[in-house]
């Protein structure tokens, strides 16, 4: 059984990340709703990347995972970039 310090850690660390996620979501919402601001799509995507990073590192502990696991996660993104890169190479030059 964990002692009290462990219990606090188990309960509080996820709550902190949760608060950060909600805060970022709030910023995203406010920026989207505020009239007349530029780069709305870029801003919201940047915030999503930040949120995703928080979940990956804070909740999924990708940072503490083995190199193998991190490579796997990266491979998914890299291979997806192949699809984007090569197809946009077509779309943008038609």
């Amino acid at each position, binding site marked *: 059984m964990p002692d009290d310090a462990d219990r606090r850690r188990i309960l509080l660390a996820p709550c902190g990340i949760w608060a950060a996620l909600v805060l970022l979501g709030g910023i995203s919402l406010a920026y989207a709703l505020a009239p007349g601001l530029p780069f709305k799509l870029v801003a919201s995507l940047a915030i999503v990347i930040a949120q995703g990073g928080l979940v990956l590192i804070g909740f999924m502990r990708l940072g503490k995972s083995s190199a*193998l696991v991190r490579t796997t996660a990266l491979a998914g993104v890299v291979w997806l970039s*192949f*699809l984007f890169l*090569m*197809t946009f*190479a077509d779309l943008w*030059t*038609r």
Partner: protein
Amino acid sequence: MRSDDTGLLAREPGETSYLTEGTTLRSWLLSTDHKRIAILYAISITGFFFIGGAAATMIRLELFTPQGDFTTADEYNRLFTLHGVIMVWFFLVPSIPATLGNFLLPLMVGAKDVAFPRLNLMSWYLYIIAGIFTLTALLLGGVDTGWTFYTPLSTLYSNSYVLLAAFGIFVVGFSSIATGINFIATVHLLRTKGMTWMRLPLFAWAMYATSLVMVLATPVLAMAMLLICAERLFGLPIFDPRAGGDPVLFQHIFWFYSHPAVYIMILPAMGVVSEIIACEARRRVFGYQFMVYAMLVIAVIGFLVWGHHMFVAGQSPFASMIFSFLSFVIAVPSAIKVFNWTGTLYRGSIRFSAPMLYALGFVGLFTLGGLTGLFLASIPVDVHLSDTYFVVAHFHYIMVGGAVSAFFGGLHFWWPKITGRMYSESFARFAAITLFFGFNFTFFPQFILGYLGMPRRYHEYPPEFQVWNVMSSTGAVVLAIGYLMPLGYFAYSLLNGKRASDNPWEATGLEWTTNSPPPKHNFLEPPVVLTEPYAYHDWDEAPGGADETTQDEPA
């Protein structure tokens, strides 16, 4: 499998093998033993192979004459769609990985089983469920979109059972993803003591490279198929050109999977052939490390060349140039492999067993298939040849001449290990030679047809093409005989074949160190690897050979 078959299955009284551990139907259908799952897969893909083969037979019959007299246009369209869908997803993609790979990979790395045995069983069930969906589509009247499911034909205009078939393909994709995940985890985490990366047999490397492609390509196909399902089921206009959809985009995401899928089919074949040639020539594989890197390079660059299917599809010239360039680049590692197989024969002691005949046939057919790939990678020549019989001949050289020959070779090579029985060597050699000639007879005329301009998927054609089509159809008869013969002598071998010793070919590799057939947990005690693979002779000179990296890493 009936419970009174133990006489057929046990090697000697008292000795147990994976075949004798439980003989009820239930013990097979719920087995998590990778060897039994391999057998389940082998039986099911054989069924699909002959369904697809029946469709091919009807296609060749129809093309015997220029008029559409044997089938109607609609029937013909359904036949070639059926042939494509079944052969690609239900035979070629799972053929070597799910049968030989499932059986051999854990044995080759010295493991008790694959990393996730229950996932492995689930993979087979997914395959069967997918097969049921697709066969239902067939029984209800078929699908007429071609195996490529190009939109908007498949989404808006086809009046056939596209939804069922597309959903079947969606499901079968998960079956190969499951196999891929299992193999990757097995190779990474379950290698036995002393089995370093550079001591892995090339077949295991091939399975690893194949699994990478399976895991990274298939999900995109799943999305493409699901989108087609959504468009047909709910009418959501996703690829509908009237709603601004771009039909070429579908082709991009389709070929993002379907070109790498070619490497899912050919990489395992390369692995099989490397094993057979090394064993039957009694030589180390020439340039082992180069063989490994070539496979990995193929697996990665294979993802970047899909646009060569789209040179005339309305893709931009710039993109076509890039794809053409990369397609030429990927020819290099394939050529390296051919040179290395040839080099392996040098100063060997070659035995022309049936597996070796298949393997040598593979080298010839794959080389020709690969060379004709250069034609299709050159944009101006491809413009002329794309969607003609040249393309048909090219990919049949790779997939039938290449992958299927290797599959048959592997089946013969490991048959004694899998069943514990020998087959008739003379029949097997005769079948191998029949297949080689039947194959060339069937498909070589199609190169000529293609150059002359005969389009594919035509059930009627101008009469000047008839002579080549008749030749091709006649060859198909020889080819069919070549495919049917093994059914006969393999069945005979199962019932009456001579008992096989543990290592009838005197091959290296961990799978030959255990019993034939292997016991339930593969090895009586975990094996330890002390040498490189292919230690067929005791001097070492293999260029870039395995002997340079012998430091152990914890397995």
